[in-house]
């Protein structure tokens, strides 16, 4: 397997969307190729960092009440 194949398949590999035989081949390549391993690690880090900037927030009470009120008005119509 070539580095350019890894570049194409790396996201599917991360998403576990690749059949086992292909997965094994990619894992073998990653053990031997520092460049592709860095690509894998940096994409994983990119995803983790993206998640970290979007921590889940509670709906502020005022917003929740406003939406309930607006929906209730329509129910009455």
């Amino acid at each position: 397997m070539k580095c350019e194949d890894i570049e194409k398949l790396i996201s599917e590999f991360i998403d576990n969307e690749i059949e086992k035989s292909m997965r094994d081949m990619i894992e073998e390549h990653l053990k031997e190729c520092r460049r592709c391993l860095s690509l894998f690690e940096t994409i994983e880090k990119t995803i983790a960092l993206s998640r970290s900037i979007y921590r889940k927030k509670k709906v502020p009470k005022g917003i929740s009440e406003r939406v309930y009120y607006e929906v209730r008005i329509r129910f009455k119509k």
Partner: protein
Amino acid sequence: MSEQQLIERAKNGDTKAFEELMKRTQTNIYNLGLRLLGNKEDAADLMQETYIKAYENLDRFEGRSSFSTWLYRIATNNALMKLRKEKNKKVSIDELKKFGDKSYKIEISDWSENPSSYFKSAELKEVLQKAIDSLPPKYKSVFILHDVEGLPLAEVARILSLSVPAVKTRVHRSRMYLREKISEYIKKHGN
């Protein structure tokens, strides 16, 4: 009470049942709005529009997907309309298409030389946030739904009426683009 029972009751005009459905799903819809649109005012408007539209179209909900997927679909379509009106500069689709083009040589640096605290810096997060916001709406929505919300590829495809391969392509290009933006930042400011 099960979701299905609540939907049936809401279809028959039971306000309380619809409110219970809202209560169970509002955190997800609000957070999706925050993530796609970037501020709580727009997220609140999106939440309101989503539930009103859901209520008005409840009769058409046949249960082929889960109620939550259906809501995500309404919310994402509404958010996409808002995102398309945004004036901030977006990266071009051609720029994103280079990832996957054999002639494009990806520069790969090793980030492991930087301590983990480096990745917690507000400045780096801001760079990443700007990069995500510069994604064209059809890429940003896929990236947020899959990589941030954690929805499976097939569900993202259902929400956006896309094929799974199309979702995979957009996820891959978005990741590669964001990775490159972080790399550029590290090259300038890192070890």
